[in-house]
């Protein structure tokens, strides 16, 4: 997301070094990536519906498109009945599902999920991972950062292991290893 600069090395997105990009171009880059955070990062003064609609407004979507797409994605994450609730009125798992809906709404090429289940209980964790799997099956790349052994082992997908900021393993069908 180009929020922090790496002390060494470079980060590319679509063949562009994102730290050499003009700052004014960053918003456009961020719109191509959907992000899910450990602490949800929802706007507290906006309802679930408005939080998701905000991304579409940022993209310049019409009111009609917003009215059509937001309920649809709320349905996908199973929160159709909580559209008008504010984040504080939702549970942790529900908030994370709103965050995923927000990351999903503009059909980004990549979803970056940074410890999305870090604050959740096992039931909610399983729901969120299933949701991310479905999104991946629909054709979106999902980058999931996690320390959760169970999740990694159950997924059986490509696993890249980082240690002290360096890539130490990159396996096509990886397992969690200490």
């Amino acid at each position: 997301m180009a929020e922090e600069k790496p002390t060494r090395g470079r980060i590319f997105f679509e063949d562009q070094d994102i730290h050499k990009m003009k700052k004014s171009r960053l918003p456009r880059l961020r719109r191509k990536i959907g992000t899910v955070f450990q602490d949800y990062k929802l706007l507290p003064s906006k309802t679930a519906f408005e939080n998701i609609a905000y991304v579409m407004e940022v993209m310049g979507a019409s009111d009609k498109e917003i009215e059509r797409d937001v309920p649809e994605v709320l349905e996908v994450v199973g929160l159709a009945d909580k559209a008008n609730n504010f984040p504080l009125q939702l549970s942790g798992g529900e908030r994370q599902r709103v965050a995923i809906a927000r990351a999903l709404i503009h059909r980004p090429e990549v979803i970056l999920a940074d410890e999305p289940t870090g604050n959740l209980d096992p039931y909610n964790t399983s729901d969120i991972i299933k949701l991310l799997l479905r999104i991946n099956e629909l054709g979106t790349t999902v980058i999931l950062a996690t320390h959760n052994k169970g999740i990694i082992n159950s997924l059986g997908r490509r696993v890249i292991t980082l240690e002290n900021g360096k890539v130490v393993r990159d396996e096509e069908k990886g397992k969690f290893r200490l």
Partner: protein
Amino acid sequence: MFTAFKRVIKSGWQSFRRNGGLSVATVFIMLMVIFLITSLYLLGGVTQFLIADLEEKVDISVYFKEDSSESNILKVKDEVAKIPEVKEIEYISKEEILDRFSQRYKDNQLLMESLQELGMNPFLPSLNIKAWQASQYGSVANFLENNSLKNIIEKVDYHERKPIIEKLSQITSNVNRVGLIFSITLAIVAVLVAFNTIRLAIYNLREEISIMRLVGASNWFIRGPFIIQGAIAGLVSAVISSLIVFAVCYFLSPKLEIVIPGFHLFNYLISNYLIVILGQFAIGVILGVFSSVIAIRRYLQV
């Protein structure tokens, strides 16, 4: 573009409503600021009235020699009237001054008797001169003393009144200067308080600003609603402050008139209502918008 603008306004109004406590606090502080600045303006009006009233009471008289002809005196009068500092000039003939004197002291027997005893008109014809400002009498007196017809002038009473006139002109300039410094200082303090309130309000929302950035909102899309919020707070404060000012002046006016006869505060406000109302709105909106723009700047870098 239009849609984005509409959304910015809607979003600004929405957060103004939803952050009720914060909005009320901001409006309250801005209300105090606008009210204070308006009061200073009205106080300035009162001071100007008092000064003008005092200056109105000051004049100088030029007395002519007994044998000077009226045409010569009128010639002097015309010349003096041409000086830009002179506001008013009045010719008072010997007869007129006697009339006025007798009228004024008709109940004072002793004076009347001595006047009759005299058997003649003891008064000198004179010109009564009023300048725009107390400080200008010096130059008027100077002009008279260097005039070509100065030999028909018996005396100019400027020198007798000089200490009073100078004192008055000193007081007025002091009052004006102190008033100005006082007003500017208070206004600066008030503006800083309002600015800091808005800054704190935005500081509370820094987390939201960073979220907006992370989902790809452009700087203007983030800044817009905050600016609208500032403008709304300014507008609301201006409306409330106008109502309070008009109500206070309406009820205070008769009481103030007892202390300062001839000064009608409410009428003064009405005759300046356009500048007062526009001023209040301008202060409110400019303060709200500028504070928001400056306060939000630091959260938009990255």
